[in-house]
């Protein structure tokens, strides 16, 4: 692993010299990098091309409506260095457009399609932005924080009174449903 150690020290040195990048080692195998949105593709190119981070583990999206931003986190793993870099970047929530990294990491296509569907972030240059899971969905992107599932259900569906014959008999004898849904403490928003 001496080669790995050299590469890892080299990477620390390169990252500390680059402007606009903050990096922090959380443990020997976990590195967190905060980078500006326009520098992220270049960073990923460096990590993949020069530092053996060939495996894109995932792209996660987090919605921060109070800051007016989406946080995109690219988790990349190096089989040689045995370490994982999480590159965090923020893009403005409006218009919510970013660049695809499909040309650097092929698996990005799936994650970008998923984020586009769930958060409404459009990735320019991604090979396929068509719907995948929510094919019959015409509402707003559901994973956004301002999407209220309960309000959506109330607006789009009718409530049905659940009062079958067998339940009426039990209620007449003094029984019934133990905790009414609106009295449940933790299951609702």
């Amino acid at each position, binding site marked *: 692993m001496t080669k790995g150690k050299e590469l890892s020290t080299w990477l620390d040195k390169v990252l500390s010299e680059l402007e606009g990048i903050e990096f922090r080692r959380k443990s020997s195998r976990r590195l967190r990098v905060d980078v500006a949105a326009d520098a992220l593709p270049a960073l990923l190119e460096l990590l993949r091309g020069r530092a053996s981070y060939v495996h894109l583990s995932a792209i*996660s999206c*987090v919605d921060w409506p109070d800051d007016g931003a989406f946080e995109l986190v690219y988790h990349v793993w190096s089989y040689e260095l045995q370490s994982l870099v999480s590159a965090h970047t923020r893009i403005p929530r409006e218009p919510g457009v970013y660049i695809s990294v499909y040309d650097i990491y092929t698996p990005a296509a799936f994650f970008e399609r998923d984020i586009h569907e769930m958060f409404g972030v459009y990735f320019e240059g991604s090979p396929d932005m068509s719907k995948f*899971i929510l094919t019959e969905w015409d509402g707003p992107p559901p994973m956004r924080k301002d999407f209220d599932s309960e309000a959506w259900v109330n607006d789009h569906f009718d409530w049905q009174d659940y009062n079958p014959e067998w339940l009426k008999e039990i209620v007449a004898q003094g029984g019934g449903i133990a905790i009414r849904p609106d009295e449940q403490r933790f299951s609702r928003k």
Partner: protein
Amino acid sequence: MRPENYETQRQPPSHEYELNIGPNHPGIEGNYAFKLRLHGDEVIEGRADAGYLHRGFEKLMEGRLWIQNLAITPRICVPDPVPMEISYCLAVEDLCGLEVPERAKWLRVLQAELSRLAAHLFTFGGHAATTGMYTPMFWGMADRDLILDLFEELCGGRVYHIYNIPGGVRRDMPPGFIERVSNTIDYLESRLPDYDNLMFRNRVFVKRARGVGVISQQHALDWAVTGPNLRATGLAFDVRRDDPYLVYDQLDFDIVTEDAGDAWARALVRRKELFESIKIIRQVLAKLPEIEGPIRCPIPNPLAWNVPAGSTYVRMESSKGELAWYVVSNGGEKPYRTHVRGPSQMHAVQVLEKLSVGCRIEDVAQIMFSLDACPPEVDR
């Protein structure tokens, strides 16, 4: 299939036709559709269509307490639910800085490896079924049931266990459990030669599985293939060894590899991993009586538990490949965001679409099962 998937090509060439496989079909362990464009019996294009098992777990988890989410996590992967709950617990423990007692870690490894055995038995039995051999499937399901019996004894649940909680496990083993696990493991090991004779020395299976759905090592790396599918291309990578968690760094096991990268190699890797899991379980059973102490560390009142703000990315080796959770807390009593990365998100979509091109129609189901894709992981 849903109406939008009925749309045919506007002007298809006269020699081509389309075929919809799914959402219910033998090639996968759940509801998943695959749309093919064919020329004769040769596949020209395959298109994955997911969404039949979408239950919005990531959104649901944002509305529930940290402890309530334990009931959701195992349901993300039905055949192999244990790594889901363990990895979610590892993420919460990492955010809170909880130190898990040693005994709980060993119990978790025991549970994870039993689950891997059960999942592999399920998968390669199913793989044989896609080539027309139903006996391995019946045997696999029957032997898997013995492991489910053990789970039932351990925690009351056969399929979904919810045995882990952040900080440790719910309860200790019942008396005599070690012996019963040991007996089951001995029995399963005695069955392995039968599986070899029935399946891996069977000319029908060998001829059907060899050379089908070949992934080269370079392609596997490019497409983020992980787990047994990656090891079947000759790369010895296993999260258990290379990014260790729990007590896997104290255990002695080999990483099984094969070079061919085809359906045959993938089935063989799983078959050999059964033996490695048995080896690990034996070590755990020998070690468990020596480790005394609590099975969980004290946690705050779970109904009013504010997990410190922060984010963490936790990885595990499930029976299907690399499983990861990205969990974000804003210091509240519910997760701010959870993102689960299941190995099948790669295998069932991009990899499957690429592998199906050029293969014959009867091999599609086999390729799907040899990749061991799990639709609920894709849909969440």
